[in-house]
Each structure stands twice: as C-alpha cells, then as structure tokens.
C-alpha cells in the first residue's frame, strides 16, 4: 500500500533546487569548521555555485512541472518564477556580503549556510500547494532570517533587530497557524486546490472562512510588512546589517507575497468579495504610511525600510485588482523591486564603514565626485525606486496600475500615483546628496570598491535597466504563468 506513496524521479526533479541548496548548505557548514581564516572566500564562492546550480535545477524542474510529493508542492510557472527570483536575490546578496563579512571579521561559513537554508524555505514557499508546506517553509525562511538579522552578536542594533523580528514574527506566525487550524477544521483539508473546491461549493459558512482567511492574512501581512502589520520593518531593516536588510526586504518578502497571492487568489477566491475592500484599504494605508513617514527620515537604511512598506502597498494594489494581469504585475513588480532595492542597500553597505557608522543621507554627500560609477548606479536604483521610465521600477508601477484600472480601481490608482510622486521627494534627497553637495567625511575616506561589490551593483543595475527597457521576456513569462492562479 506504500506503493502509490513511493516518490518517483519526477518528484525529486521538481524538488531538486531545494535539495541542492540544502546539500550545499550542509557542505559549507562542514567546511567552515575545517577551513582557515584566509580561504573563507571559497565558502562564499561555493555558496554562489550552489545557488547557480539551484537556479539551473529550477529551469529543469520547470520542464518537469507538475505536483510532487502527494501535492505537497506544485511546480508551475508561478512557483518557478518566484524560485528563480529568490535565487537571484540570494546570489546578489551573497555577492554584496563578501566585503561586508570581511570588514566585520565575522565567520562567514554559517552566514552563507544560513542564507542557503533560508533560500530553501523561500523556494518551498514559492511552490508549496499545501498549508503545511506554507507553514514550514515560512518558518524555515523566517528562523534563518532571524539569525541573520542578529548575526553580529556583539552589535546591539543587530541584537535588537533580531529580537524584534523574532518575537513579533513568531507572534504573527501564531495567528497564521490559528488561521490554518480553522481552515483545516472548516474544510477538512489544507490543500489549496481542495480548499478552493470546497469553498466554491459554498456549503461552508463564509463567516468562518472569513475568520480563517483573516487570521492567515495577519500572518502573511506581517511577513510582507503591509499596514497595519508594518511596524517591525523599519526597525529591523535599520538594525540588521545592510546586506541582510537587502536580503530580508526582497527574498523572504517576495516568497511571502508569492504564497500570499497563491492562497488568496486560489483558495479564498470564492470569498474575495469579503477581502477585496480590506486589501484596498491596506494597500492605501501602506503606501501612505510608508511614503509619508519616509519623508522625515535621515537614516538611509531606515528610509529604505519605510519605502519597502510603501512598495508592499503597491504590490497589494495588484492583489486588489484580483485578476490575471494583477498577478503578473505583482510578479514583475517584486522582481524589479528586488534588483533595485538590493542595489541600493549594496551601495549603502559600501558607504557604511565598520559597524555601519555612516548610514545617514548626509554621509552619501559628494559620492558623485568620489566614485562616479557607484554614484551613477545608485542614482539609477533611486530613480527606479521613484518609478522613472526606462527603469524596472517604472514599468512595474505602470503595469500594476494598469491592472488596477482594468478592474476600475480609479481612485486607488490616482492615490497610488500621487503617492509615488510624493515619494520622489525623499528619494531625491539621496540624489541631491550624491550629486549636488560637497563630499562628506564618509565619502572622503571611502575604501576602493571591491570586485564582488562592483559585480553586484552592476548586475543589479543591468537588471533594473533590462526590466525597464526590454520587459517583454519577463512580462510574457509572468503573465503566462499567472494563469496558474485561477
């Protein structure tokens, strides 16, 4: 009777990226113990290789797409897209981490291992088709991230950010879990398709479905940091090391959004009349809180933290649209946001000296004169965050709001666009600093940018411009795979 539960090759192919990541993570863990101080770099390279391997495995799994392991996961275009996205995020973050770890004299082995494991969790999230996998994937990615946030255990800001993230994260997870419990009790199953099927029949009391959905909304909303669950984001991003913040604000967030959309667009589609208004409000609130509060920030990391709230709001607009285009738009947006945000954080971590002393906007002053290339790229990232044409940020916003208007969300669109114009104000403070002011002490004694850092920001910049100028490829893939979420 075990026969029909016997996993066959296809299952492993579909799960290959996670397997590879885990394997590499373990290997790195082992090597860390034996390798000496000077060849730590190898571990980094090794993790890069692991990620690349997983990336190709991801493509392979796409060719074998379908459910695996008794519908615990399902490999579809949607899942593959997000797996690829988080892998790219991981790649860029590892690259940016090289010089950071070197600077802080932190033992790098665990760091890379943790990143890989956290990626495992995010890949699981991206492809999970059962709430149990959602729960476990979320925990894997989160716990790894908690540790990364507090990685420098002697740094008070790291501790604090880790504690805040950990306590509040678990708190929110409890809500999510309670929601899962109710879903289970209501439906009798936790398979996403199954939930949809049952709810579509409509015998179940939609009020309790609403309760379940609401409790899960709290959990997801927290992970993607949308109002009213956004509080933690600025503190944590400010406290954690810049590369980690870059990672947290893009990878886990993208994965959480992936599953957020999957659950609400697939399972709770039947009751979307109940949650659309809520999402509408949360989207607007997130944009307003994020942008307005960012106007008065002077710390770049904290500013980016607030901006990440606002961007989560934009993505939520796509959920409000509740349409194929909306999903595709959200996918594109998260991709664009990932590259531009990592780029920005990377430059910040380059400017910030040991113990991240220089993370104020004023510390960026005169970068344009000291390091023209870095400054130019940072400008590109910032303009993309603003949403200036020919950058990924613009096209992402454009596509999101097109989806919104397709669903007649006129006012949300107008308010969102006005928000993005207001946001320009604080983003431009960065451009003003780097190009229109005299060099600051921070930029005066700037170390030469390391090769890995250069690769990272150039790659991010190219990504931004590619998504902005030739979005067709990504867009087609996104809108094709968006149909996975019926």
């Amino acid at each position, binding site marked *: 009777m075990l026969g029909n539960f016997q996993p066959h090759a296809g299952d492993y192919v579909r799960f290959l990226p996670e397997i590879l990541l885990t394997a590499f993570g373990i290997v790195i863990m082992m090597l860390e113990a034996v390798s000496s101080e000077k060849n730590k770099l190898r571990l980094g390279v090794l993790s890069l290789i692991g990620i690349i391997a997983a990336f190709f495995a991801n493509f392979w799994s796409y060719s074998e797409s379908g459910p695996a392991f008794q519908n615990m996961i399902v490999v579809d275009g949607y899942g593959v897209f997000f797996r690829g996205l988080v892998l790219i995020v991981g790649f860029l973050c590892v690259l940016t981490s090289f010089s950071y770890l070197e600077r802080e004299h932190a033992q790098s082995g665990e760091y890379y291992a943790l990143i890989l494991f956290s990626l495992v969790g995010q890949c699981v999230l991206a492809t999970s088709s059962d709430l149990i996998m959602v729960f476990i994937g979320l925990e894997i990615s989160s716990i790894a991230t908690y540790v990364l946030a507090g990685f420098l255990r002697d740094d008070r800001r790291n501790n604090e950010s880790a*504690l*805040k993230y950990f*306590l*509040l994260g678990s*708190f*929110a997870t409890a*809500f999510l879990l309670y929601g899962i419990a109710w879903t289970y009790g209501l439906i009798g199953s936790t398979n996403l398709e199954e939930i949809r099927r049952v709810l579509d029949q409509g015998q179940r009391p939609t*009020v*309790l479905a*609403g*309760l379940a*959905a*609401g*409790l899960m*909304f*709290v959990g997801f*909303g*927290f992970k993607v940091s949308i*109002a*009213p*669950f956004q*509080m*933690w984001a*600025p*503190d944590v991003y400010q406290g954690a090391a810049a590369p980690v913040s870059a990672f947290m604000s893009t990878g886990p967030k993208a994965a959480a959004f992936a599953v957020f959309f999957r659950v609400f667009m697939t399972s709770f589609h039947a*009751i*979307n*009349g*109940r*949650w*659309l*208004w*809520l999402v509408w409000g949360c989207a607007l609130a997130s944009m*307003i*809180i994020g942008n*307005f*509060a*960012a*106007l*008065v*920030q002077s710390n770049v990391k904290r500013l980016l933290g607030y901006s990440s709230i606002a961007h989560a709001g934009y993505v939520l607009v796509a959920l409000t649209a509740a349409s194929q285009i909306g999903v595709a738009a959200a996918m594109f947006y998260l991709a664009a946001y990932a590259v531009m945000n990592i780029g920005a954080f990377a430059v910040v971590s380059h400017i910030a000296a040991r113990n991240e002393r220089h993370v104020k906007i004023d510390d960026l002053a005169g970068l344009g004169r000291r390091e023209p290339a870095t400054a130019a790229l940072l400008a590109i990232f910032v303009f993309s965050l603003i949403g200036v044409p020919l950058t990924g940020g613009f096209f992402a916003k454009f596509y999101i709001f097109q989806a919104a208007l397709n669903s007649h969300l006129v006012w949300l669109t107008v308010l969102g666009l006005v928000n993005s114009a*207001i946001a320009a*104000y604080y983003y431009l403070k960065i451009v003003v600093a780097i190009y229109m002011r005299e060099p600051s002490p921070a930029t005066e004694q700037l170390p030469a940018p390391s090769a890995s850092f250069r690769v990272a920001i150039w790659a991010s910049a190219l990504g931004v411009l590619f998504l902005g100028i030739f979005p067709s490829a990504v867009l087609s893939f996104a809108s094709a795979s968006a149909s996975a979420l019926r």
Partner: protein
Amino acid sequence: MNLWLIPFFPLIGFLLNGLFGKRLSKSLINMFAIGSVAISLIYIAVLLANIWPINTPYVDHGFTWIQSGFLTVGFDLVVDRLSAVMLLIVAGVGLLIHIYAIGYMEHESGYYRFFSYLNLFMFFMLILVLSANLLLMFVGWEGVGLCSYLLVSFYFLEDYATGAGNKAFIVNRIGDFGFSLGIFLTVVAFKTLDFGKIASAVSTMPVEAGISTVTAITLLLFVGAVGKSAQLPLYVWLPDAMAAPTPVSALIHAATMVTAGVYMIARMSFLYDHAPFAMHLVAILGVLTAIFAATIGMAQMDIKKVFAYSTVSQLGYMFLGVGLGAYSAGIFHLMTHAFFKALLFLGAGSVIHGLSGEQDLRHMGGLRKVMPITCITLAVASLAISGVPGFSGFFSKDAILSAAYAKSQWMFWLGAFTAGITAFYVFRAFFLAFFGEYRGHHHPHESPFIMTVPLIVLALLSAGGGFIPVLGWLSPQYPLMEHESSVAMGISAAFGIIGILIAAFIYVVRPALADRFRTAAGPLYTLVANKYYVDEFYFAFVVRPLEGISRFVLWRGMDETLIDTGMVTGLARTIRGWGSLLRQLQSGSIRNYATWVLAGSLLVIFVLGLVGGGR
C-alpha cells in the same frame, strides 16, 4: 514698377551703416545715408511720373506675408494720390533733414548709429505710407515707433533721454493697443485687412447711426492715432521726446511720424465716413488738443519745447480737419506743417548749434545779427505757422477752419482763437531768441553752409507751399467741400496777426511787461508753465499704483506668500507634518507593535468575518 524698391534703398543704407558704420569714414556714412534716401526720392519721382495721373490706385502685390485659414495678409504696397503726396513729403523733407544732420551731428559720437537709425526710420515710414493693408501699416506704425525710441534715447548716457525714450515707446504702445484691437475687429467684421476689399465691403453698408462695429473699429484705430500723433490724453511723450537730437525732432516729431495718425484716418476715410460718431469725436478731440497744447506753449522757456507743444496743437488742427470730413484739408495742413515745423525745428537746431547746446530762451536774444539766415528763415516759418495771409500755413489752416465754420461754430471759434495763441507763442519765442540783447554767455555763430541750405529750401517751401494744389490734386479721392468762406479766412488771419502784434509789443517794445504779466497771472501761469501737471498726474495715478500693486500685492502677497509659501510649500509642509505624525506609530516598543498587530487582526477578522458582502 516695383514699389518695394522705395523703402528698400533706405533699408540698404541702414544695413550698411548699422553693420559696418563703426569702421566706415564719415564721408562714406554720409554717402550711404543720404544716398539711399536721395535714390528712393528720385525713384519716387520717376515712379510717379510713370503712373501719372494716378486715377486708380497703383497696387504692387508682394509675397504672402501671413496665411492662416481664411486670413491672408500680403506684403502689398499701393500708391494713390494720397500716398503720392505723403511719399513726396516724407522723402523730400526727410532728405533735407538728412543733409542738415550732417552738419548738426558733426561733433557727436555714434555718428553712424544716428544715420543708420534715420535710414531705418525712413524705411518704416515709407512702409507705413505705402502699405495696402492694415497689418502692414501696423508694421510701419510700430517700426517708426521703434526708431523714435532709438533716436530719443540716442544720448543713452543721459537718464532724461532714455527715460523719454521709454515713455515715447510705452505711451505709443498704449495707442497701438487700440490700433491692434482695431485690426482684430476689422478681421472679425470684414474677414480681410486689405484696404481695397474693406472699402468695397463697407461701401455696401449703411452709414451707422450709433456705435456699432464700424464705429468701434474706427474708434479703436483712432486710439492708435491719438498715441502716435500725440493727442489728448496721450500727447505727454512728445514734449519729452525733444531729448532727441534736433534733426530727429524735426523729421520724426514734427514732419512725418507724428502725422501718421492723420494719414491713417485719411487712408481709412471709407470707414470713417460710415462712422459719423467717430468723426465727431476725432474733430472734438482735435480742437481741444489744439487749444490745450497752445496754451502750454505760451509759457515754455525751452525753445524746442515751445515748438513741440505747437506741434501737438497743429496736429490737433489736422485732426479737426479730417474729423470734419475735410480730409484733403487735413492732408494739406499736414504738408505745410511738415514744411514750416521742420523749418522751425531746424532753425531752432541751428540756433542751439550756434549756442553750442543752449536751448533756454532766457539765455538767448539778439541773435539776428550773428545768424541772419537762421533768423530770416525762422521768421518765414513763424509767419507761416501764424497763418499770415500768403504764407503756406494760411491756406491750409484756412481750409480746415472754413470747414469748421460750415460744420460747427464753436469749433471754428476755438480753432481761430488757437490760431491767435499760436501766433503769439511762436513769435514770443522768435523775439526772445533774435531780438533784444544777448543774455547768454556763449559765442554765437551762424551755422555752416550744409545746415543753412536746407533751411533756405524749407523756407521757400513754407512761404510758397500754400500754392501747391494739394486740395485739387486730392479731390478725386476726397471731394472738396465748396464753402471757401471769406469770413472764416478773415477771422483766422486777424487772430493770427493780433497774436503776432501782442507778442511783438510784449517782447520787443516793452520787455518789462512780460514779467508783470507773469506775476499777474500768478497761479494760472505756474499751472500752465507746469503743463497742467499732467505728467505728475499720470505718474501718481497710473505708474506708481501699477508698480506698487505688482510689487506688494501680486509679487510679495500673491506669488510668494499665497501661492508659493501657501499652496506649494504649505502642501509640502502639511505632508511632512503627516509624516512626522505617522512615524510616531513606530514607538520602537515591541509590546506596542504587538498591540498594533492585535488591533489589526481584530480589524481584519471583523471585516472579513462580519462586514464583507458578496462581490
């Protein structure tokens, strides 16, 4: 024949002198300047001879200037009997004054600049005269204004000169405002700007009783004329314009440009004939200006100012004439006035030249011995302007006054009285300058040959100009009104002679009387001497308020405070305020955050569980 060649020659002169004048020798500059005008005068003569007698207007269609929708404006020029007269006046007097200027400007810096400006003026003036449509006329109209500005502020180191220049241009702009509105309304009414087409269109219309389109057009155009020809209330720029070198005053501010208004009305007579109300207004304003300016002229001490006000007054006469429908009379007076007023100015100029810049009558006197030619020519001019029978002024002024005599008595009497005043102040100036003892401290000397020749020529014209049969010549275009009343003749002539006698009595026979009169007049005299304080009035009630409102109400108040600080910065500040309010949520305390999550979860559950309805 190509009419465009007429203005073309002066343009060439302008370009040559303007571009290269700095490097050219004086003789070359003279050659270009004088030559260009002379050539175009010759060309005019040849042209007129060719198309003689000009029974039908000779139109020369140039290129299309503006073409938009139904509206087409071409660079079209026309010569008819009217513009023929005008052409001769402009080119002829212009030439004389150019020649005179050679002598007058000899020692001035910016010699080439002066002549290039003069040529440019000739160009625009000829365009104005020749133009066959309103817009082209407007080009000349504004162009001569430009030249007047340039020449008035010729001594650009002196603030009074540049100030006068600005005043001249801006006041003219006010007039042109009306003129341009007239143009717009013409297009609205007739869908064209071509004189011929308008005339044929209007000829079918009835004469308007009250105020209606055609009247409105004519009135608006007249506003332009008021500005350009210095009538009430826009005359104020002309006296100041005397800051220009004297030849300029003679050419632009006496003989040609200022008469453009009169020319324009004559040119547009087909419209004015249909707007009796406008005609009446023109006449009234003309006669009022005549007397008003004349009274001021009595009390001026600057010789050029005297003649300036007399110009204003004489222009008033012309407007009276055209306003009464006696277009030919107006044009006739325009011509004679061009002669004798140019002569007056040139004479004054030669006096000033002889006194090396002195203009105040109080520092002259007894000059008849040292500069006889100037004295004699000036005497002729004075007699002419006073309308002494036989001299040119007599015939033209008489033509106008007899028209008035027929049309409206009060205008006639006013005009006649003005004639007396005119005679008085002109001769007052003449006697103060040439009789009595020399009161100045320069060494007067007669002007050089180059200057006196034009004086003599103009003197001959002023004397005999009355016998040029302008009225007859124009009669096909402007039918004569057959009421040569001997009464009017007599009265006006009498007034003139009386005026001369009084002047002679006061300033030659009993010089002491003058001061006694002055003291007796007291406040009245000061009022007049200060030109009725009109300038002060304008400054206090137009210029100052405008500037004050702009600076304090609009700029500081509206623009900076209300819009920029209020709207723009205010909005930004409000948003930032919201921002600093919202950041208070981030108290940094984990427990608060948890409480927020709790609140949020409540909201979510509530909305999802209990509120949301089906979509």
